[in-house]
């Protein structure tokens, strides 16, 4: 019998002596530059962190180079962040610059610390998933190339979190990001009756539809979809491969803004719709890229120091947001899903 249920490697086995010695005894930290942090322990010992974004999709040869660098500069220890950045953990300050030089040489740039854009959370897209409405890695690459100055230079009023989910399942935490890109479909799925009859659990398919757009069609041992009620979530396709929802002519990206997860100052907020639809434009998605750049530039210029994206919008108001960004406000921006009424304004107090 094979060995099972023994769990992950013990984290203490993966930690340097310095980290173990000062476990839970850190006193404060400082941001040295946009790629470097120092953490100071109560006993005065210092741990330097050099952070660099990765594309998340990494070949083992690159990971081996990371290992080489960690052996060379960090006694063999490094870690990753929850946003797919790598962090080298150095004890010797004089190793920082040589490490950075080596990273640059392999095409990786330190950054993402402090009031910057840190690495962009994203999902699988066309690389490895069956439900995406957009690609993930390609858009991330194009967007990050464009806003790279905000990654290496601390010129934003506060930190800014970008993320992307390639369909509404949203495997990455985009709904609470400052700027989020989400893949959406715009036409109802097609029902392939013969295949449905063979491969799908019909009661589950019917139950999967949030808007009750699906009803059984016993004669064909299949289902029918009421197109009027469908909002293209693709949940039925998740339950049944015989109800494909793709449409290259209509799939594309929506952009949401103003979310955050930390409770500092204002409690965590969901991201809200800014742009309902931009078509897929591989390989470099110029419209998405241009829109994200604009959204960030406007915020960088207008927000007060310390204000996150959503806090800025809360202060200036959504009507001002649409004015300063020049984005059109449409019927799509007004919620008509389950919990919509509390989002309607019931005062006569607005800005113009």
């Amino acid at each position, binding site marked *: 019998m094979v060995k099972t249920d023994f769990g992950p490697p013990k984290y203490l086995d993966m930690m340097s002596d310095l980290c173990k010695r000062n476990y839970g005894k850190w006193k404060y930290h400082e941001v040295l530059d946009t790629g470097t942090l120092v953490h100071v322990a109560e006993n005065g010992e210092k741990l330097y962190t050099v952070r660099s974004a990765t594309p998340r999709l990494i070949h083992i040869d690159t990971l081996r180079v990371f290992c080489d660098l960690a052996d060379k500069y960090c006694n063999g220890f490094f870690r990753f962040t929850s946003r797919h950045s790598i962090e080298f953990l150095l004890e010797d300050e004089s190793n920082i610059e040589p490490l950075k030089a080596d990273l640059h040489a392999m095409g990786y740039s330190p950054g993402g610390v402090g009031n910057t854009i840190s690495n962009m959370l994203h999902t699988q897209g066309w690389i490895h998933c069956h439900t995406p409405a957009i690609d993930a890695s390609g858009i991330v690459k194009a967007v990050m190339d464009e806003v790279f100055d905000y990654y290496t230079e601390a010129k934003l009023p506060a930190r800014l979190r970008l993320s992307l989910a390639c369909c509404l399942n949203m495997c990455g935490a985009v709904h609470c990001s400052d700027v989020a890109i989400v893949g959406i479909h715009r036409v109802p799925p097609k029902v392939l009756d013969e295949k449905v009859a*063979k*491969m799908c*659990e*019909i009661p*589950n398919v019917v139950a999967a539809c949030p808007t009750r757009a699906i009803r059984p069609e016993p004669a064909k041992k299949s289902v029918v979809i009421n197109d009027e009620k469908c909002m293209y979530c693709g949940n039925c396709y998740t339950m*049944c491969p015989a109800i494909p929802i793709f449409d290259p002519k209509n799939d594309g990206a929506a952009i949401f803004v103003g979310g955050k997860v930390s409770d500092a100052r204002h409690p965590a907020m969901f991201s809200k719709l800014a742009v309902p639809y931009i078509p897929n434009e591989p390989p470099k998605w110029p419209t998405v890229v241009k829109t994200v750049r604009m959204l960030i530039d406007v915020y960088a210029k207008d927000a007060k120091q310390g204000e996150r994206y959503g806090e800025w919008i809360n202060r200036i108001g959504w009507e001002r947001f649409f004015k300063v960004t020049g984005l059109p406000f449409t019927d799509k921006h007004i919620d008509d899903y389950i919990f919509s009424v509390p989002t309607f304004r019931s005062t006569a107090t607005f800005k113009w």
Partner: protein
Amino acid sequence: MPFIDVNGEQLEVDEDGFLQDPEKWNEDVAKYLAKTEQVEELTEEHWKMVNYLHDYFKKYQIAPMVRKLCKDNGMDLKKVYELFPTGPAKGACKIAGLPKPTGCV
């Protein structure tokens, strides 16, 4: 799509080896599929589960949830994995001729 050969009859299966047409299922098919899921011999306990799954699906057109499956057969999950080492969804459901379970991975 691949096919399996059970007593000279060609049966279509999907890439994971799930039977495409539930109507074609019978005891011999179950025995054949059992071998592909590390069940060398279907004992009485195996048959209890397999028949239960098959009947449940016939009645409701869905596979039971795992808790229900354990409860209705008086087995805990550990026992289910002892009988079907590849688990209730991949192992037991396949042997019972159910379509491939779907959902979030």
